[in-house]
């Protein structure tokens, strides 16, 4: 999974990062809180369609199709099977689909937001809404750092396996094994942190001048449409229900 990847393949990010943030909150609130009947169900369908369209727009066709397939089954189960069954069968279906469906849509949108936003765009958008650097820089470093961490820990795990240290292995108790994992991870975190600071120095982040950028961030018609939908969702959740 590439987070905050630099836009390859020539497409530019379709939505403004501000819109993505609003939609992320709106979709999560709406999907977590709605039930399976009437208007609630309609709201869920709307939420489910949005990530699908967005995946297509950033040309992740395979992801879009897989997502659409899973979502269609899920919505079919929610809309058709649950109301028309009863008793134990109903309970079983609710148990298997309920938890999953609440997470899937929000997760899909978060995935879209992550892989379609570059660090530069994110920083610029945060600047536009007057969020101070003290929040923006740690936040973007943090999201950028998650994939690095998983890469590092994979290497560490391999190195440890080579020395015969693994869960259930003979060397060391549980605590010692934890130490063998966490300490190298902390070491490499420190080292990477120093490297990042050096890189930021060469980029002149510390100069104290306003940051310049070449990425284009502006609201398009699609942004306004989605903001309307997002506000609509939030309004529905907080006032109409």
């Amino acid at each position, binding site marked *: 999974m590439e987070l905050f990847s630099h836009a390859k393949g020539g497409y530019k990010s379709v939505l403004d990062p501000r819109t993505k943030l609003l939609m992320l909150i709106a979709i999560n609130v709406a999907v977590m809180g709605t039930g399976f009947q009437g208007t609630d169900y309609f709201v869920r369908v709307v939420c489910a369609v949005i990530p699908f369209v967005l995946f297509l727009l950033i040309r992740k066709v395979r992801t879009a199709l897989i997502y659409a397939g899973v979502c269609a089954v899920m919505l079919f189960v929610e809309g058709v099977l649950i109301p028309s069954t009863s008793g134990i069968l109903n309970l079983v279906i609710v148990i298997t689909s*309920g938890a999953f469906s609440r997470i899937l849509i929000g997760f899909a949108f978060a995935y879209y937001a992550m892989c379609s936003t570059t660090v530069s765009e994110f920083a610029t958008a945060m600047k536009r809404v007057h969020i101070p*650097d003290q*929040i923006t820089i*740690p936040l973007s470093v943090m999201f950028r750092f998650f994939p690095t961490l998983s890469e590092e820990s994979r290497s560490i795990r391999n190195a440890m396996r080579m020395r015969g240290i693994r869960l259930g292995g003979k060397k060391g108790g549980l605590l010692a094994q934890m130490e063998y994992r*966490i300490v190298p*991870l*902390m070491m490499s975190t420190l080292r990477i942190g120093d490297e990042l*600071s050096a890189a930021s120095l060469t980029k002149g982040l510390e100069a104290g001048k306003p940051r310049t950028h070449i990425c284009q961030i502006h609201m398009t018609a699609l942004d306004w449409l989605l903001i309307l939908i997002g506000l609509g969702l939030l309004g529905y959740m907080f006032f109409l229900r």
Partner: protein
Amino acid sequence: MKNKLNTKDLISIGIFTALYFVVILIASFVGYIPILMVLMPALCALIGAIPFMLFLTRTKKFGMVTIMGILLGLITFLMGRPWPSLLIGVAAGLIADMYLKSTGFASIKKSTLGCGIFSLWLLGMALPLFFGYHDAYMESMRPGYGDAYVDMLTKLTPDWMFWIVMVTIFIGGLLGAWIGSKILKKHFAKAGMA
């Protein structure tokens, strides 16, 4: 201007928040066993304290711990916890920061208490189990985890348990900080990194 945060500090906050959060996430997998669900925040505090102590060796200015608290609060909020969890994160960060400033960020031994205070942000994670959020949260878990699990959990989490969880988190944080300082001394001080 010596006390102003520079970019290096901000980057440290970013990477250590990421490390801290990942470690906590791994520790929280234990929480699928209902009995341990109550102890889970304390366990998270215990293990999370180890990278946090390393972070504290890098903090020499007021504000870094606070920002970390804000970030963690934001993540908890975005993960669908009720909004007071954001406030808990900010408050824990701020109080720990003020305490650490009063000690001058100098002594590892005194940082232990600061680490215990900071760990209390985890209360935000546990918040939906208690008070007004309890019933709704239990209902939302029922489909995913099954009735037996939820009933057991309900029995384990009356409201007064919140305060016990608070105490266990604090103790977990202190204990973790102690282990962390041992690890720092063993591995990092020798290499000149702490």
